[in-house]
């Protein structure tokens, strides 16, 4: 097929049918390009996945909330029509305590939160000044989030180019000024490089409240809360939605896999094609121009546009031969930081666990607080210790965890006619676990998978005694699994570590922050590109924007 001068069947091939690959493909197809998505697994959606832990018992396999999905992606790709239904509980986050004292609950309705915090202050659980601080902090984070959200919604400037560099300075200055007007705490340029522990320390005296918020600054990263730049992770998590300090807790009816399926449907509705079970072995090229892909099956497919939804290390180092990059770029790509520290444990439970913080409350009230994110980090030190173990290659004594119990919102996860063990399942619990180092000092993840599952259950037991008895089945996904099954180098769920050194116009590499990779016609559209990881669709959408801009110039059609 290649090299015979006949026109390609496809204008664009998207490698990887993760949510960003599909988003990108759908936008390209909508503009009339002939698009093919090649996905290695049998499910579209990548990390937006649902799996059966027991027959007819479904759990969010990896990600469990989708509150950061860009509204523009959902709207323009008409995901609702394609089956996406979002569920937003009244509760955003609940942080249980270890000692049975009432935990902290953050509600979508800020006045409800403030009322509750006032009650907690009355009982001496948090200092009274934190109640007033909460509203201030919420305002400040909303302002910061909207400032950063503006940056995250755009293709980054080419800062290597003089005139645009000037523009960047202007943009940053304007943002700084803009957000300063909204917040007494100084603008983005002050806040983004901070350690999230310092930022929450400026807001709150209470460690319980501080840790609940600070956890968002380390989530999915290998960072501890004392590390500079983690404030950026928090602000990015607050960008693009009005969640503020409480954050988001949006779930998908039927599980996150429905998002993947809806995106795949959107691609097809726009005339694109999604091929499952099709693993790409490498990208083909002529000189410095991408010409298509070779599948693991040996089939060759031509296209003048090749878009990779894979992480940049895999894209540059595995899909291209070293000569295509040259020594410097190979070296730079190999230094992209991708040390994953996130694992996942999913549980099928025979009943709703009882948290000691909620003991005595009615079952309806317990459920009301457990429908959002349940954050297991009683203090900032907990987060620090969990990360510290991981950076030395050990499992922590007590991991940081964020759990959801999606069956409290969505009974469709439990199919009809469950039998045997599955028949006992009343709830499922999805637990994101940190910090589980990709590189273990002792043993392998294959040997230690069970240990991680035990550790999570033991830790949960400290907050919700008896939960172990309720566990009918468990699924443990290690960083090695994330690398193997989802293709993310180092098992990093964000593809590329969320540090300021791999951020914005220089994510994943300075000079390659605008989705264009070193071969003409080769693009990056995954989480390793701006604006980064999480189920946002942002990189996919912005990459499509740039690809379409290049396509419209006609330069990319030369090979067709």
């Amino acid at each position, binding site marked *: 097929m290649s090299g015979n001068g006949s026109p390609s069947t496809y204008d664009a091939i998207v490698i990887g049918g993760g949510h960003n690959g599909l988003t990108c493909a759908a936008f390209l197809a909508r503009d009339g390009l002939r698009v093919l998505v090649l996905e290695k697994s049998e499910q579209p959606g990548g990390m937006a996945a649902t799996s059966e832990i027991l027959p007819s018992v479904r759990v969010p396999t990896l990600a469990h909330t989708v509150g950061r999905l860009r509204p523009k992606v959902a709207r323009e790709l008409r995901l609702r029509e394609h089956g996406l239904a979002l569920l937003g509980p009244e509760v955003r986050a609940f942080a249980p305590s270890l000692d049975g004292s009432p935990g902290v609950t953050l509600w979508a309705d800020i006045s409800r939160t403030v009322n509750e915090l006032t009650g907690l202050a009355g009982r001496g659980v948090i200092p009274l000044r934190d109640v007033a601080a909460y509203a201030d902090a919420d305002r400040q984070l909303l302002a910061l989030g909207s400032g950063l959200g503006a940056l995250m919604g755009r293709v980054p400037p080419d*800062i290597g180019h003089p005139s645009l560099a*000037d523009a960047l300075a202007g943009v*940053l*200055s304007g943002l700084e000024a803009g957000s300063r007007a909204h917040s007494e705490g100084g603008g983005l*340029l002050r806040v983004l490089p901070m350690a999230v522990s310092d930022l929450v320390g400026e807001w709150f005296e209470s460690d319980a409240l501080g840790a609940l918020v600070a956890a968002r600054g380390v989530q999915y990263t290998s960072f501890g809360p004392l590390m*500079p730049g983690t404030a950026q992770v928090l602000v990015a998590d607050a960008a693009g939605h009005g969640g503020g300090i409480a954050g988001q807790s949006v779930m998908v009816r039927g599980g996150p896999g429905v998002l993947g399926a809806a995106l795949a449907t959107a691609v097809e509705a726009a005339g694109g094609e999604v091929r499952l079970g099709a693993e790409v072995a490498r990208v083909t090229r002529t000189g410095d121009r991408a010409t298509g892909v070779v599948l693991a099956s040996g089939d060759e497919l031509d296209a003048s546009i090749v878009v990779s939804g894979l992480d940049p290390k895999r894209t540059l180092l595995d899909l291209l031969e070293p000569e295509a990059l040259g020594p410097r770029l190979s070296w730079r790509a190999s230094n992209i930081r991708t040390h994953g520290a996130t694992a996942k444990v999913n549980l099928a439970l025979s009943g709703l666990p009882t948290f000691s913080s909620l003991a005595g409350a009615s079952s309806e009230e317990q459920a009301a607080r457990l429908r959002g994110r349940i954050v297991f980090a009683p203090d900032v030190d907990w987060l620090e210790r969990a990360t510290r173990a991981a950076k*030395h290659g050990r499992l922590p004594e007590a991991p940081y965890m964020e759990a959801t119990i999606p069956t409290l919102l969505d009974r469709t996860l439990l199919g009809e006619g469950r039998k045997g063990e599955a028949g006992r399942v009343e709830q499922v619990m999805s637990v994101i676990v940190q910090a589980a180092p990709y590189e273990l000092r002792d043993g392998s993840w294959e040997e230690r998978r069970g240990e991680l599952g035990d550790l999570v259950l033991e830790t949960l037991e400290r907050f919700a005694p008896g939960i172990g008895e309720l566990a009918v089945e468990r699924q443990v996904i290690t960083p090695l699994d994330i690398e193997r099954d989802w293709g993310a180098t180092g098992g990093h769920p964000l593809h590329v570590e969320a*540090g300021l050194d791999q951020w914005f116009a220089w994510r994943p590499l300075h000079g390659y922050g605008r989705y264009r990779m070193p071969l003409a016609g080769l693009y990056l559209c995954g989480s390793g590109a701006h604006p980064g990881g999480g189920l946002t669709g942002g990189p996919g959408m912005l990459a499509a924007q740039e690809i379409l801009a290049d396509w419209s110039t006609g330069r990319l059609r030369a090979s067709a």
Partner: protein
Amino acid sequence: MAERYDAVVIGGGHNGLTAAAYLARAGWSVIVLERREVLGGATVTEEVFPGFKFSVASYVVSLLRPDIIRDLELARHGLQVLPVDGTLTPVGQGEGEYLWRVDDHGRKVRELRRWSKADAEAYDEYSLLMSEMARFVKPMLDEGPPRAGGFDPRGMLGMATLARRFAALPEPQQTAFIQLLTMPSADFVSQWFETEPLRATLAASGIIGTFLSVRSPGSAYVLLHHYMGEVDGEYRAWGLPRGGTGAISGAIAAAAREAGAELRTDAPVARVNVRDGRATGVTLASGDEIEAGAVLSSADVRRTLVDLLEPGTLASEDEAAVRRFQFRGSSGKVNFALSRLPTFKCLPPGTTDHYRGMVSLSPSIDYLDRAYDDAVDGRFSTRPYVDMGFPSVIDPSVAPPGKHVMACFVQYAPFRLAPELGTWEDQREAFGDAVQNAIAEYAPDIHDCVLHRQVLTPWDIEQRFGLSEGNIFQGELLLEQLFNNRPLPGAGYRTPVKNLWLCGSSAHPGGAISGAPGRNAAREVLGSVGRGRQEKVA
């Protein structure tokens, strides 16, 4: 009747003296008020034990701005910098268990090749890159901070200039600059090198004076900060002033005095006097008042704006901004008087050249990171990072004949100890022992060499030098506390109080013996008169 000056400078540290010298040279009447009985602040030589002269706090010089040396003719005023050659990193006691980089290129390459051929090849490329980076940031040190934010046209222009200069760099330097501002120093250097002690020793420059791990993002900036130095035009060259670091402040003081400045010791300032939002002078602890058109404080920003102002002077949001500024001292200093030099077992017997350089206890990244973990828990490091020198080898004037001085900069020693440890006064000698034991891991005879030991904990550094929380840089060198945000967003050397200026390390470009904050502040003060913003009393 109060005395009157054009300017009063609070604090006779090297920055206060530098500011005073520049103001006096411009024809201003200036008085410097120093709390202690000696000038120099943390740039001081003191005879702590008879015959042994310690550079009590700061111990090497590199970052002193060359134009200050020229402008103030410091050489004529007695400053002589003796080069320090090489860094030895012992990694064990067995022979050959060390990495020893010396200035001599051939020897250095041979030594690096002993560890890794690839590292030996990468080393020159790395060194060149870092020199280029130092050159790139140099204008930022010598001018004020680039001002982001606000719609101040001068600020926008500054940012645009920075952006243009950045855009003119080749890609490798652009990349390195971004990484230096944002990366962990360990990851930064590991891009080039695989030899563990080399990685660790280079990365350790990223934690000096800062409560960060080599694995913390942001530590690469501190690394760059330490590369900004030049001695005789050569970047990243370190030297020892003859007579100790006190000789630097001595020379600057001489220059200031010659230009007509009055330098008064034993003159602690109790308060900055403010009338109608304007600083009018100071009141000394003695009760004496001094009036001045401009008050410059080389004390840190917290001391200046919280301790020296009448409560309520600052608007509450300004005071909140001052209180947000992080200090978090994390270093200590242990100065030894030695009967003889300790023997590092890893070196061939009879080796002496390493005493002319530094010895760095930084065998691995993990070693340094664990030292940090201790500090996060509120304990001093069991096995600390130690950067030590032997000034008496290069400059015999600082010790009695045949005897020696050994200066040890130590990290980490957190200002705030865990409650169960009590106070730093309780822990001072235990800390000194930890340092001595860490050295003994490589030079077991150290215990037999020690005649006397002076241990400075962060608490001592605060008490003795007035540095809040014992932070040697007058505030952490964190990205959010640098450039335009140092120490208060957008303020530069100004403070919310008119006529009250900051001229110490709390201000841009931050700590170390650079003189840049003092010189830059003086220039701003002088410039503001030209624009009619400052009332010169004369």
